[in-house]
């Protein structure tokens, strides 16, 4: 009897050992990737690197200013497109959870969340690139906005659902009309959650390459025209990483480092906000 208990206990301990081993082993690839990118990228970054366009093959120097500007412009434009739609749709979902429209738009959020980003790229190609006759920053932004939407909607919806109904009642009982109740009481009270959803969605789209391949395309020159092709950080990394030149690889390492820093910072800030406000996303 005692021997059997000992065997069972040993088994239990062994099992825990295996679990702990696998659970921590998974952080190893992440740490290796992060350290490698930092090691390769940090030496590339300089003021010159941030303020110049890539140098042609064979010339040294050059930077990623075109991609920085492009990513900035396109992320801004997609935020302008996606945040109002996402917030209002999220408010609708949290306010009217049982309507038919809520069911179908909830379903559509789930669908959008699962759509491969390359498919969004294809669709925007036919919606915008073909009619406009050229790759453009606009079409890239619309593609990214569609990628942003589900995250903004879900975070808005879930944050607002967590707010106590008494808050809404308090405002309504003062004769505050519905739209002011939502915009001046409910949304400000859930602001932290909505904001972290927005930041998370930006962190996601800033690294998206696939939807940009057939929409914004790329542009080796500094351009701020939204009707022309535009470079972005991830697209620059893709082009330069798959090129055969060492200088270009270095440029891509530098760009990867910058991109990674953006993404990590956004994620960490979001984590801090959600932890402080105890929000589940």
């Amino acid at each position, binding site marked *: 009897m005692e021997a059997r208990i000992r065997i*069972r206990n040993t088994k*239990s301990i062994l*099992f*825990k050992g*295996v*679990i*702990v*081993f*696998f*659970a921590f082993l*998974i*952080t190893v690839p*992440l740490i*290796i*990737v*992060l350290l490698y*990118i930092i090691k390769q990228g940090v030496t590339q970054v300089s003021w010159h690197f941030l303020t110049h366009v890539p140098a042609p093959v064979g010339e040294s120097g050059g930077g990623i200013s075109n991609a920085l500007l492009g990513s900035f412009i396109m992320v801004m434009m997609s935020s302008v497109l996606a945040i*109002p739609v996402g917030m*209002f*749709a999220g408010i*609708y979902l949290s306010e009217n959870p049982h309507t038919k*429209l809520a069911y179908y*738009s909830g*379903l*559509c959020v789930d*669908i*959008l*969340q*699962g*759509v491969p*980003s*390359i*498919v969004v790229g*294809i*669709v925007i*190609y*036919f919606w915008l690139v073909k009619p406009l006759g050229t790759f453009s920053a606009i079409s890239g932004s619309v593609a990214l906005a*569609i990628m942003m939407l589900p995250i903004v909607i879900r975070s808005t919806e879930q944050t607002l659902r967590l707010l106590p109904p008494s808050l809404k009642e308090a405002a309504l009982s003062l004769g505050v*009309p*519905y*739209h*002011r109740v939502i*915009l001046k009481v409910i949304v400000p009270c859930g602001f932290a959650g909505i904001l972290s959803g927005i930041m998370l969605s930006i962190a996601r789209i*800033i*690294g998206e*390459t696939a939807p940009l*391949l*057939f929409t914004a395309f790329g542009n080796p020159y500094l351009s701020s025209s939204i009707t022309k092709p535009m470079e972005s950080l*991830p697209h620059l*990394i*893709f082009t330069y990483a*798959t090129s055969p030149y060492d200088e270009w690889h270095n440029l*891509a*390492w530098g760009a*990867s480092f910058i*991109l*990674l820093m953006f*993404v*990590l910072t956004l*994620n960490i800030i979001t984590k801090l906000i959600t932890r402080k406000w105890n929000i589940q996303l």
Partner: protein
Amino acid sequence: MKNKRLDLSYSQMKWETIFRRILIFMSIVLVLIVIGILITLIMESMPSIKSLGIGYLWGKVWDPVSNIYGAYPFLIGTLLTSFIALIISIPFSYAVSIYLGEYNPKGWLSNLLKNTIELIAAVPSIIYGFWGLFVLVPIIRTFEAKIGVAPYGIGIFTSSLILAVMIIPYAASLGITLIRMVPSPLKEGAYALGATRFEVIRSVIMPFTRSGLFAGVLLSLGRALGETMAVTMLIGNTSTLAHTFKDLIFGPSNTMASVIANEFTEADHTVYLSALIELGLVLFFVTVVINLIGKRIITRFTNN
């Protein structure tokens, strides 16, 4: 004063209606976007569906130069990369779920590990691809030389390795939440009967969370199937299928997403382009169905 308030309240009523309409309108926009995506994909796939028929899906040859299109190599490439990645990732995502859900649900170490794993999903796929191309590929090449296959370095195996890492967070973070939801009276009941921790996990926690953990695996699979950039950089972009299984796994190949990424802007005639879009349509359907099934299981699980 009193009349002013009355006037104001009437103008406010108008705004209330407008505001409600905006909410409804934005929700409809969302539905329209999704319907639009579907319609566009179907419409643009029509030339290919018409001229190639359903046989396109199991056509073994993809040769745009001779105008022959068969999706079979990409279906195989996609399924193989995704399933190998899934198999590699499952032990990890289950281990993380059990460790953070049961053994160590609170405290700084638990939080640190959980946040680290969530960061895995935050790193853009292009960065995994780039790193894989320059660090992982040479390692795999050495390994391939040792086991006696052509040392390409790139291919299905390499892509699967990277994919496995990328998809772990999706199954893991769901698994953690679900395992934490196991009611403690259930566990205590088993402990009271003298069960060890392992026995409680095996005979109480696992059966209780099985469907939910499966849903997590489905979500991971959905990610893997649609993942584009990392795979595009690592799979080798070869549209012919290798003849032996070993060459297939370790040699270059193509997935649906990667062939679209590589050839879409080069597709110079209607059927070629349309054949690529049809791949996108298939990909759309498969990932959407997998995701919706996963979500349904989760909803049912959390409602019970």
